[in-house]
């Protein structure tokens, strides 16, 4: 356990009754002062991970370490962690000031000190002057900020946020994303943020954990995960993707939709079946003669920044294209893309195997764009 790590899960499994485990042998390490995001579909176990860290529930198997100390059975009120709850959980019988002061009052901090700290925390979240409002007089976004102030005022080592922005409208949500990220940088506290919104995760995080069915599918920086998804689930969940089946003919040569393409991937067996990911924004519309793929435009949606164009090739594979240019529905068009746009995924590869394979590229130094973590 190194100095930078603050929390560590060692083979943690969580079961409720005799049901299949909600978390299945999960291991990870979080470093001090970073912004982490847990991303995954509903019911995948995100809240359960937060509850394990906060101490509201105990793991069925495995160990949880905090600052070099095993904390499996440490009660929640003894942990240096504060939570911003999915439903904010503000105390309705207390006003804004008293809500924020709750933790300090429990710790028997001096009155003058409480006053100063609460004021400071409220101004952190831009709520100066709201001290004596009742909670019911606050809007959803303001309540959320009260919940954040209530967590940060205790200066914990770690703050857990459970989908705190899910109730807000798009504009307020984007604003709060900036504010939260900014706040985390200013305070230098470790944040663990839960969301099932992939754009939110990409925009805010130092590192993302993509979770499905109680297992961590992939972890890494937003660009790592977006550019090099490890499997179909991650590719599908993070952004839109075109995923087709193909086979790896040899190193740097892959075959799909009946054609061979040069690519940047290697380390596969000859003729190994693989899956190919091409992001919609990497596809460019040209004439059928110039295109590397020939497709027919099926439908088109205007998305504001771009058109989302849905096409089918002659094998009935769907191709999603994001383009600023309009296409004509029913017309035959060509799609062109760079060799870097092709991302090859090995079937059923785990994260460790994936990382090991990436390392072999780096060792030989022949593929500069691979990032190894």
């Amino acid at each position, binding site marked *: 356990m190194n100095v930078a790590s603050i929390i560590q899960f060692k083979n943690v499994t969580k079961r409720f009754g005799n049901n299949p485990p909600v978390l299945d042998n999960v291991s990870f390490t979080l470093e001090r002062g970073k912004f982490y995001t847990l991303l995954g579909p509903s019911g995948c176990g995100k809240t359960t991970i937060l509850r394990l860290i906060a101490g509201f529930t105990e793991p069925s198997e495995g160990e949880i370490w905090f600052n070099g100390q095993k904390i499996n059975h440490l009660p929640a009120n003894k942990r240096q962690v504060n939570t911003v709850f999915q439903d904010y*959980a503000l105390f309705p019988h207390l006003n804004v000031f008293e809500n924020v002061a*709750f*933790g300090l009052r429990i710790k028997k901090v001096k009155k003058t000190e409480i006053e100063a700290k609460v004021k400071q925390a409220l101004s952190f979240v831009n709520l100066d002057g709201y001290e004596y409002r*009742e909670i019911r007089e606050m809007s959803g976004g303001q309540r959320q900020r009260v919940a954040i102030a209530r967590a940060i005022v205790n200066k914990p080592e770690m703050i857990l946020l459970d989908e705190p922005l899910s109730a807000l409208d798009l504009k307020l949500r984007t604003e709060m994303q900036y504010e939260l990220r900014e706040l985390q940088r200013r305070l230098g506290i470790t944040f663990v943020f839960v969301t099932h919104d992939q754009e939110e995760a990409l925009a805010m995080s130092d590192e993302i954990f993509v979770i499905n069915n109680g297992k961590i599918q992939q972890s890494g920086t937003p660009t790592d995960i977006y550019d090099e998804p490890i499997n179909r689930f991650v590719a599908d969940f993070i952004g839109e993707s075109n995923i087709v089946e193909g086979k790896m003919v040899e190193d740097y040569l892959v075959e799909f939709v009946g054609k061979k393409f040069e690519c940047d991937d290697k380390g596969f067996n000859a003729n190994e079946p693989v899956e190919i990911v091409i992001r919609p924004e990497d596809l460019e519309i040209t004439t059928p003669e110039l295109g590397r793929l020939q497709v027919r435009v099926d439908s088109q949606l205007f998305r504001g920044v771009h058109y989302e164009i849905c096409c089918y090739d002659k094998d009935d594979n769907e191709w999603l294209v994001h383009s600023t240019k309009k296409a004509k529905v029913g017309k035959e068009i060509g799609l062109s893309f760079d060799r870097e746009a092709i991302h090859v995924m090995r079937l059923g590869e785990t994260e460790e195997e994936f990382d090991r394979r990436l390392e072999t590229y780096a060792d030989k130094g022949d593929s500069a764009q691979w990032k190894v973590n």
Partner: protein
Amino acid sequence: MFDFKGFSMQWYRELFHDTRMLIIVLNTIIVALLSALFSTIFGMLGALAIYNAKKRQTKNMLLSLNNVLIVSPDVIIGASFLILFTIAGVKLGFYSVLLSHIAFSIPIVVLMVLPKLMEMSPSLIDAARDLGANSWDVLTKVIIPFISPGIFAGFFMALTYSLDDFSVTFFVTGNGFSTLSVEIYSLARRGISLNINALSALLFLVTLLLVVIYHFITLRNNKASGLGVQKR
């Protein structure tokens, strides 16, 4: 009977000179206050126990037991208490009346407090523990303030139930101890005296006052339930 000739304070004056009557009024008030106080405490603890029951079965069983006491007729409750006290050898009088009043008020308090507990989002308790509160802090700083409208309502319900109870008290009282309702009953049987009318008028005013207080409490109650926590 009497011809109405105008208002008079005479019977009130007489009432207030009747020390026996005054002692009975005092007894009634003391029994009501004490039984309301104790039944509120036990009722609240009972509601917390039902709320915290882990198994659904235990929860339902406790709730049904509670409801049995509410639906059973006063006469049966009174008779049962009489049998119980006689078997247990409790002397009939102040304590037997107080105990039975506490006993029949507890289920009422439970019924007033439990919905408030159910209304409370469990994440409030998690939040308090998250902020460093131990179990005592959670109880006194979060749970009790949250359910306090229910507690007040329960207290006043218990108070009124105790004040106007006749049948149960009639069974378990004895040794010269009497409450207002029992006393009025025996006075009325002896023949009409205008003392009773004066007493009834006073009783009516007190009850009215209690109803008004209760009304304001429920008002506060409704206001409180619209508060901050959003439930999903």
